[in-house]
């Protein structure tokens, strides 16, 4: 099982999804991210999905769950790097990712969070 590295940049935790996540890795990620948010007091989480060439409803639910956990721990989540073909597919599938903020890339994601006061 590959674990997903979580980097801390200022007040923000950066999670770069490396490959297709399987169930166990998703559970492990949710747990370690929750721990890191509470131990670091991070106010923002960026999830980089630029390597994912497919986001199905399982992965979509994973993103929504991570965002929900972060929100409860008072951190805001931004998903960055979604590929255009993935975005088109998600819309057609009807997976709206409601409540998840997105940005085109890491830089814009950081700016979005700092605009919300996360880096202040």
């Amino acid at each position, binding site marked *: 099982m590959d674990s997903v590295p979580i980097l801390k940049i200022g007040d923000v935790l950066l999670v770069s999804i490396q490959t*297709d996540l*399987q*169930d*166990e890795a998703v559970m492990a990620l949710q747990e370690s991210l929750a721990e890191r948010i509470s131990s670091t007091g991070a106010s923002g989480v960026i999830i980089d999905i630029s390597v994912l*060439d*497919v*986001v*199905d*409803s*399982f992965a*979509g*639910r994973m993103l929504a769950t991570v965002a929900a956990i972060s929100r409860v721990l008072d951190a805001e989540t931004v998903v960055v790097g979604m*590929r*255009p*073909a*993935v975005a*088109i*597919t998600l819309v*057609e*599938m*009807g*997976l709206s990712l409601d409540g998840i903020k997105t940005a085109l890339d890491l830089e814009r994601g950081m700016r979005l969070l700092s605009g919300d006061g996360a880096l202040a």
Partner: protein
Amino acid sequence: MTRRELPINDDGDVVRVRQLVRSVAVDARLSLVEQTKLVTAASELARNTLTYGGGGAATVEHITNGTKSGVRAIFRDKGPGIADLDLALTDGYTSGKGLGLGLGGARRLVDEFSVESSPGSGTTVTVTKWAR
């Protein structure tokens, strides 16, 4: 033409089915967006085979019709079957803890979609996507 079968008995198999569908879609010259839609649909269906069908298999082949080139993928299981297909296809309906978008979403993402299922005899879902 390429025709390959893979078992679907665990999470890793779902990933392998996605990879196989992707490579056959590339062979069939589907565009990147078409590939992505088909692979996403295949991922939903393979996961249903695993989660609700108790495991099964997928057959993936490059097909042609005159000058048209496409991919057909078949997902089979010998699970409990789907009693109410209209309900199962309804967006948001899940009997488990999914998002209920797999079947309906897969149907929207492909060109041809059919389900054969009856309680007790398992489920077979066949999808086809053509290169434009």
